[in-house]
């Protein structure tokens, strides 16, 4: 919220490209824990909301929405309303909306937290696929260590104490990462290192 420029920090400050954040960064894409689709808009219109608010040219945005929908495997659902879709599909629509204006910075706050394990795994691969094509900076908040290691180049571990950073773990694994990546030693090492900080919470 603070990085997105939606709330002011109680102390300290945030900079993006050395510019202090006082309002939402111009090339920003935000995803929340729930998809936040507007139920009176079709899938396409929900995605185009990004363009309409930003007053981007309609034709270009429409063409781009088509491409994204194709990538998300949702082309045949473009005229559906959100309540006609499953949770995973809704979240994919939300990703398309987030990516419509090709943002340089993506902020994702546990976007897949509400999904079941298999759908979640598909979303991770989908996100990676789209990311490989665009290479934006992604700040991804999650409670899933697996998700963190699978997606990230760098995992910053925070303790339950508000705002305290306990470690900064680099993840050196080739991309694209797939299900098999999880069996590589580097994956296990990273997971173990991160998990070690939470073991002590027991006592």
């Amino acid at each position: 919220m603070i990085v997105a420029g939606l709330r002011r920090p109680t102390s300290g400050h945030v900079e993006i490209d050395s510019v202090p954040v006082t309002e939402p960064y111009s090339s920003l894409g935000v995803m929340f824990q729930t998809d936040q689709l507007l139920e009176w808009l079709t899938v396409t219109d929900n995605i185009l909301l990004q363009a309409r608010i930003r007053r981007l040219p309609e034709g270009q945005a429409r063409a781009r929405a088509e491409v994204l929908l194709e990538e998300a495997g949702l082309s045949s659902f473009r005229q559906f309303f959100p309540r006609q879709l499953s949770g995973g599909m809704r979240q994919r629509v939300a990703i398309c909306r987030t990516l419509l204006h090709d943002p340089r910075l993506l902020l994702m706050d546990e976007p897949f937290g509400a999904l079941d394990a298999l759908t979640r795994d598909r979303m991770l691969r989908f996100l990676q696929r789209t990311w490989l094509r665009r290479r934006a900076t992604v700040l991804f908040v999650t409670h899933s260590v697996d998700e963190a290691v699978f997606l990230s180049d760098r995992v910053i571990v925070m303790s339950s104490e508000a705002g305290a950073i306990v470690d900064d773990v680099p993840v050196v694994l080739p991309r694209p990462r797939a299900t098999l990546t999880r069996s590589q030693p580097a994956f296990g090492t990273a997971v173990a290192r991160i998990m070690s900080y939470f073991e002590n919470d027991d006592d």
Partner: protein
Amino acid sequence: MTEGSRRYGIASRKEGAARATVLGRWALPWLVILVVLVVWQAVVAIGHVPDFVLPSPTAVLHSIWYNQSELWSDTLTTGGETLAGLAISVAIAVPIAVGFSYSRLLETAVYPLVVASQAVPKLAIAPLFILWFGVGFQSKLLIAMLIAFFPTLVNTVAGLATVPPESVYLVRSMGASEWQIFVHVRMPYALPSFFAGVKVASTLAVIGALIGEFVGATSGLGYTLLEANANLQLDLVFACIVLLSVLGIALFYAIVLLERLVVPWASQRAEASR
């Protein structure tokens, strides 16, 4: 073919038994009304009930036909007062509701006054309005407005309060202005509640216009009803009651229709949950 019947057409092919259900939904209420009317007619005929105690349905129908030109102009008068009162009440209630949703201070300051204005029985201030604004159109419109205003305000305030903060954050992260946030998020979220309020307000507006006509008027269904009652012309009294009901029902369903056009997602949701 209307949008609705086409939808039902598809549904009946899909579900088979749906056609019977649809028939039931439309035909059943009319059938019940018909039975009530037949029993009423029979009781009056068999019991030899005099017209000045309880006129039969056919007598009421005859009275409507016989007095059609006078009753038509009365209906237009009362309908006009109702509609104008309702329209102005909406025009006043909505900006106040929006103001409340943006300013806690405004809400704290003005809300008690609004509630107080509702606590005053309208019947008690109706004579005052007649005194101030005359026996014509204006006083009726103001009474109708005063009654109809409250439900629209309360429901619109409630609707605006249901807007999820995350949705506002979402469009704000896109760099939306307050106006864009209102148009794209707040207003659509509040519309279903707004319409619920206007539906209640529409029936109250009819009552408001009627109160005004009872207290002092020279035309209108309420005026004719009182006069007919004094002359023991009960068939005409019932004729006025029938027309008042028709007026109220027509207004109500006109708003339902408008709602379906403006917020189709809300009525679809209601139908899906049935």
